[in-house]
């Protein structure tokens, strides 16, 4: 039989004769050549739109940013580039605000990522029970994900208002003095982190839930037979099985935290790119924006972008090391 006869689609062919003879005349040489071309070149045609856009708007800019970071480029005349070597990077390392931004990015990153993922894990654990209205809980917990950075931050600015904000009112009801959320270093960073946490906890919970549902039931059965309590089952069955997923979410959240931009920008109100009066919550993303579009130094902004890229590469390398260590320990 021919190849098709074994295939499921051919299971429905009308007659047990070769499918070639399907009432169609044998194709001429021209048609046959066209067909051969189609088979061998169509894959490239299929991937070319993607790689065309990807090359023009992804790969080329990535490399060109590196090139621009070695030049003096002004915002007013972006086509005029003057070679300065590593000067932009030297300026960067000398700038106290750069180190400030790096520190802020790190602290806000930890403040937002750690509680977010822990809460997501807990929520996923709860969602994994058999629940009434299971879909409702999932959709409701995901709604913050549908809210844009801008809309979310504007509400939180109001909630964290110093004089009339709801958070301070609630604290006052508990007998705690009002906090000047925007002007304190820690308070502002906690406030910015809370916006990130609010938007992403539900999303991560769903990712953990998906991973939990993939854990085979037998593992829990045997754990239960061994007399493991539910808490112990969570600790010794669920968490180890989720390790790759947890690592994945840690990496994704870390990348997100490195790029943090919209939340601090809008939390700062009118002079948002500074990240507060004393730059107390200026992140690297904001610093880049300030250098390029408020101080008009596109070259320096490019240097910041590539520094961020290098930091991400370091994170990726660390991630790979950890993943390898985890694999070895199993």
């Amino acid at each position, binding site marked *: 039989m021919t*190849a098709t006869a074994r295939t*499921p*689609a051919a299971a*429905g062919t*009308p007659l047990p004769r070769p499918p070639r003879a*399907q009432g169609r005349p044998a194709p001429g040489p021209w048609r046959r050549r066209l*067909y051969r071309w189609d088979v*061998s070149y*169509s*894959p*490239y*045609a*299929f991937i070319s739109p993607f790689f065309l*856009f990807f090359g023009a*708007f*992804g790969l*080329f800019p*990535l490399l*060109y*940013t590196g090139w*621009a970071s070695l030049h003096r480029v002004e915002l007013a005349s*972006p*086509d005029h580039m003057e070679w300065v070597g590593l000067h932009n990077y030297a300026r960067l390392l000398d700038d106290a605000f750069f180190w400030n931004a790096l520190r802020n990015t790190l602290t806000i990153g930890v403040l937002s990522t750690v509680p977010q993922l822990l809460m997501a894990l807990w*929520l996923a654990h709860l969602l*994994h029970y*058999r*629940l009434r209205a299971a*879909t409702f*809980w*999932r959709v409701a*917990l*995901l*709604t913050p994900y549908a809210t*844009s950075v*801008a*809309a979310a931050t504007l*509400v939180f600015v109001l909630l964290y208002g110093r*004089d009339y904000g709801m958070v301070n*009112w609630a604290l006052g009801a508990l007998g705690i003095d009002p906090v000047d959320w925007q002007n304190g270093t820690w308070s502002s960073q906690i406030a910015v982190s809370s916006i990130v946490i*609010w938007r992403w*906890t539900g999303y991560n919970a769903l990712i953990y*839930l*998906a991973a939990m549902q993939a854990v085979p039931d037998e593992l*829990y*059965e045997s*754990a239960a*037979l061994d007399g493991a309590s539910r808490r112990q*089952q969570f600790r010794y069955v669920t968490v180890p099985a989720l390790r790759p997923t947890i690592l994945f979410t840690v990496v994704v959240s870390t*990348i997100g935290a490195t*790029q943090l*931009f919209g939340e601090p920008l*809008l939390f700062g109100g*009118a002079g*948002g790119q500074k990240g507060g009066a004393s730059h107390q919550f200026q992140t690297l993303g904001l610093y880049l*924006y300030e250098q390029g579009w408020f101080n008009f130094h596109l070259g320096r902004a*490019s240097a910041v*972008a*590539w520094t961020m*890229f290098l930091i*991400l590469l370091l994170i990726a390398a660390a991630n790979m090391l950890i993943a390898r260590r985890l694999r070895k320990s199993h």
Partner: protein
Amino acid sequence: MTLTTTGRPRREGPGPQRRPRTRTAVLRRLRRLGRLRPRRQRPGPAPTPATARTRAGRQLHGGPLTYAVLAVFTAGSLFPLVWTAVTASRDNMRLAKTPPPFWFGTRLAENTGTAWTEANMGLALLNTLLVAGTVALGTVLFCTVAGFAFAKLKFRFSGALLLLTIGTMMVPPQLSVVPLFMVIAELKWTNQLQSVVLPTLVSAFGVFFMRQYLLEALPGELVEAARVDGASSLRIIWHVVFPVARPAMAVLAMLSFVQAWNDFFWPIIALTQENPTVQVALTGLGRGYVPDQAVIMAGALLGTLPLLLAFTLFGKQIVGGIMRGAVKG
């Protein structure tokens, strides 16, 4: 060769008289062969008798405490959104008093109107709809086709190209902002929508997502059979790949629509308040463009409402899509 799964008795040997020419026919045939999962698939574990019996400690019903904690988190998730509506229906004076308002006022229409005209929210919504719609369409089309090529076709460098695609999934948008800005300044595209659409028209994640889906969902024999029948590649895409890929395409469309709707960093740089997307207009509001808190919140409400509406309608599918993407990705 009885491959029936639907219980309909089938004759031995030659099957029905028609080859699957249309999408529905392909779908029906696939489903009959058990290649495609049934239409209504629940994201959760199917409550088959087997798992119901062996529910050892895990698939227990949630207790009252579980519901209580979930309710608290749900309230926390929904409260800022509800409060957006509450403040959008008040006036600025009321927002400058303690305690803050807890219930709706009467000025919703008025504030929304002000936001619509003063913050350009009408134009912003239209622009965003255009941008997000185009991006979702382009992403789904290009990524499905490329994902199919990576999943089922053999060609030179396919491995290396796929690796390149995956490797750039994590490159942050900040890295390309400066050259992109230089290009659109050169082309005099500042403030024009194509400067926002074109850079996000394809996504590496989309290609990977579609590849992973088609790898499992599309039997290679089906493509080969169509080939033997002399179908051209375009025909195969249209009559075989698209019907099979439809569920994943819908998920990818929704995800890229949400992402494009909420895209922030690049639109802020490429557009101004004269021709904004929703996020740009909201940024203008937040930075003191209109110094009225109630109007600002009305703008935020306007900018969020369309997506919230979509979430109430398609929430189940979006949740399912995110969870499926999580396991595969």
